[in-house]
């Protein structure tokens, strides 16, 4: 459902009815997309603002990933350790959503602390994919993407540390944007890997993603890594400006041996669609791609091991009372964190520890420089890069969860973008066995308008986004 359609509905049937339909849809779907819903609070807040609406999202229900702080609404990060934690403040993006009149109806399910590619590591249970209930929705923003794909909310926020918006957008057949690092304030986003992650919008169309990005993006003085950049997204979707003459780079390395045939074909069809629209393409090489995944995981785990040190049960969250402070602390974390989170903290601690710091952490940061240079080189001759978002469509629940490494390998096409800090969007470009396939368009720093325009043109000339789960 589009933002425009929902706003019409709000005008015609009223906000209460719109919220009621959201709630009903969540009930019917049973996808486990939300950890917490707050329809009562949502209605109260929406009514309070009734009449003074001028916001672009007036009355529009939105799902917010559960690692984004919401004042007065439980925020768990999908973890037992934050059960019952109610932030006393709003994240910057939540303030901005509210300022535009959006109505937060709840907090979406996610991989614990955003560590996962399938939303199976959530303490609150796995999320199901509306395109196939036995399939994962992707992760870690699986709740947000499945909720949008399942028609529960028109828009949602996710966060993307190594693909966590784009992967579930791809698996659920919706549109998701990972903005330029520094493009959206991280104030209030519970950190997994600070130097890599960004909050990103998820919706059913490129236009809605652009609008949501416009609403949440831009400089915030509370985030020292926030960029003072004014994005011009409005002209990006101008129908007069197409992709005529746009130079598209196709990185060879993003079509690795694990890529499914259908994914390969769909993405090549997309390239030809762009050609038909007047763009040109060339094959480019990004030689350090093969090191990106390892570098990404070393950096993410190292930062995570430190970011998650604060969860000691003293000031908030789950707590085990047992012996002295260090014992109580260690046991709280034993019980409060799930397997994957513990493994990543242990590995990150190891990578930063004396004797290993240079071999792992420092080396990963050096590789990051090389990966970033690959992008700089590519963007000398290209306006954007095009690749599959994921090497395959949604896999089955339980298929990879016991094999961490094989799960990590699914992120091969998404993590280099976070290492470099550039923006990327995923949008539907085909189907394999009735499961959606995602196309990834990658831009240079602050070139969101470019990738949004290209994505919009592609969407206008194809029908993939029109198909809904359940249509045969």
């Amino acid at each position, binding site marked *: 459902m589009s933002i425009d359609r929902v706003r019409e509905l709000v005008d015609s049937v009223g906000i209460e009815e719109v919220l009621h339909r959201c709630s009903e849809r969540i009930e019917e779907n049973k996808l486990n997309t939300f950890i917490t819903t707050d329809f009562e609070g949502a209605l109260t807040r929406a009514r309070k603002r009734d009449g003074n609406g001028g916001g672009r999202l007036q009355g529009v229900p939105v799902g917010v990933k559960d*690692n*984004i*702080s919401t004042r007065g609404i439980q*925020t768990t*990060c999908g973890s037992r350790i*934050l059960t019952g*934690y109610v*932030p*006393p*403040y709003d*994240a910057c993006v939540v303030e901005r959503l509210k300022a535009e009149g959006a109505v937060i109806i709840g907090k979406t399910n996610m991989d614990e602390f955003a560590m996962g590619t399938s939303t199976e590591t959530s303490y609150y249970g796995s999320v199901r994919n509306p395109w196939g209930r036995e399939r994962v929705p992707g992760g870690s923003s699986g709740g947000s993407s499945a909720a949008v794909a399942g028609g529960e909310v028109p828009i949602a926020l996710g966060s993307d540390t190594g693909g966590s918006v784009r992967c579930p957008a791809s698996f659920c057949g919706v549109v998701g944007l990972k903005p330029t690092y520094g493009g959206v304030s*991280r*104030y*209030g*986003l*519970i*950190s997994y890997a*600070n*130097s890599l992650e960004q909050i990103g919008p998820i919706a059913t169309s490129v236009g809605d993603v652009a609008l949501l990005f416009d609403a949440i993006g831009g400089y915030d*003085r*509370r*985030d*020292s*890594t926030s960029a003072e950049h004014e994005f011009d997204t409005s002209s990006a979707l101008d129908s007069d400006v197409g992709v005529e003459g746009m130079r598209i780079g196709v990185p060879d390395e993003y079509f690795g041996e694990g890529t499914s045939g259908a994914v390969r074909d769909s993405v090549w069809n997309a390239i030809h669609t762009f050609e038909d629209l007047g763009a040109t393409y060339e094959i480019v090489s990004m030689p350090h791609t093969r090191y990106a995944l390892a570098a990404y995981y070393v950096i993410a785990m*190292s*930062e995570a*091991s*430190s970011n*998650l*040190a*604060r*969860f*000691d049960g*003293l*000031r*908030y969250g789950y707590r085990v009372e047992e012996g002295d*402070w*260090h014992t109580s*602390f260690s046991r709280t974390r034993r019980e409060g964190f799930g397997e994957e989170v513990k493994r990543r903290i242990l590995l990150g*601690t190891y990578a*930063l*520890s*004396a004797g290993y*710091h240079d071999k792992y*952490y420092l080396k990963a940061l050096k590789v990051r420089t090389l990966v970033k240079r690959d992008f700089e080189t590519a963007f000398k001759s290209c306006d954007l890069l095009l690749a599959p978002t994921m090497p395959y469509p949604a896999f089955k629940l339980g298929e990879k969860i016991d094999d961490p490494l094989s799960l990590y390998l699914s992120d091969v096409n998404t993590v280099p973008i976070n290492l470099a800090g550039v923006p990327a969007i995923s949008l539907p470009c085909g189907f394999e066995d009735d499961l959606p396939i995602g196309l990834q368009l990658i831009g240079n720093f602050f070139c969101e308008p470019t990738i949004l325009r290209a994505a919009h043109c592609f969407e206008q000339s194809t029908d993939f986004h029109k198909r809904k789960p359940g249509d045969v």
Partner: protein
Amino acid sequence: MAYENRDRVKIGLEIHVQLNRLKTKIFCGCTTNYHGDPPNTHVCPVCLGLPGALPVVNRRAVEYAIRVGLALNCGINEHTQFYRKNYYYPDLPRGFQITQYDYPIAQQGHVTIEGEDGEHMVRINRAHMEEDPGRLVHEGTIDRSKYTLVDYNRSGIPLLEIVTEPDLRSPKEARRFLDKLRNILEYLGVSDLDLEGSVRVDANVSIMDGNRTEVKNISSYKGAEKALLYEIVRQKNLIRRGKTVTQETRHFDEAREITVSIRTKEEAHDYRYFPEPDLVPLRVRDWVAKVKEELPELPDARKERFMTEYGVKAEHAKTLTGQLKLAQKKQ
């Protein structure tokens, strides 16, 4: 006559000074005047370490640090950076302290004190910015207490850690150095050192080129001399009895005026320092000229001037300038 220093006493000091003349904390807008206020009333998501809250550096804290650095004749680094020092204690709300490591704000200075044998130069290794942890309150003593209470009003108070080289040769010199430092800090107007907890000193002590011990928890200037006197006698006695000094951390028990070994569960510290990803580098060397210009006249310079302008005798000038209030009256 040169000072003999028969026992080859070597003392180095690490002094933590609160820059408490600042209105707000180092990384958030909470006010620093918490003394006497109820616990946990000068706090916000940032200094409580709430998930998602992010630090932003107080510009004036950096200015103050440069002021002190210049007064200690240090060089101000072109590029400085905050790091995370990872360790766990209930007073540390994030499970790491934001501090400096490589690239501290100020390095390689010196202070001249009146030493055992006349003027003596004490080298300053570095001065770096960091955040103060919260405050723990124990029921009874730390080892008997059934539980610990935590107040985060102090969490995030801007600290400057000043580290000397082991150039001090006696407890008396250490005291003189600390007096001189106190004097300088007051002249600079960066700290009110009368406030409880505004200064904490750790001392590294060795004799006869033996192992050194680190004496922690010296919370007053007077305590420093006593702690050092005790620790030197303790080390001498060990060596006299043919034993060696163990390299260890010791705790100064102010009430009993002795140092005691602290058995620590965390023997193998591994702080896993890495640059704080939530903060960006500082390039502030171009502030130096302006800060220098605004630097008040420091005690040494003023002493010189009192002697030449007013014909005051050296001894008298020292007394006058040794206390900021007296010196201001004389003006």
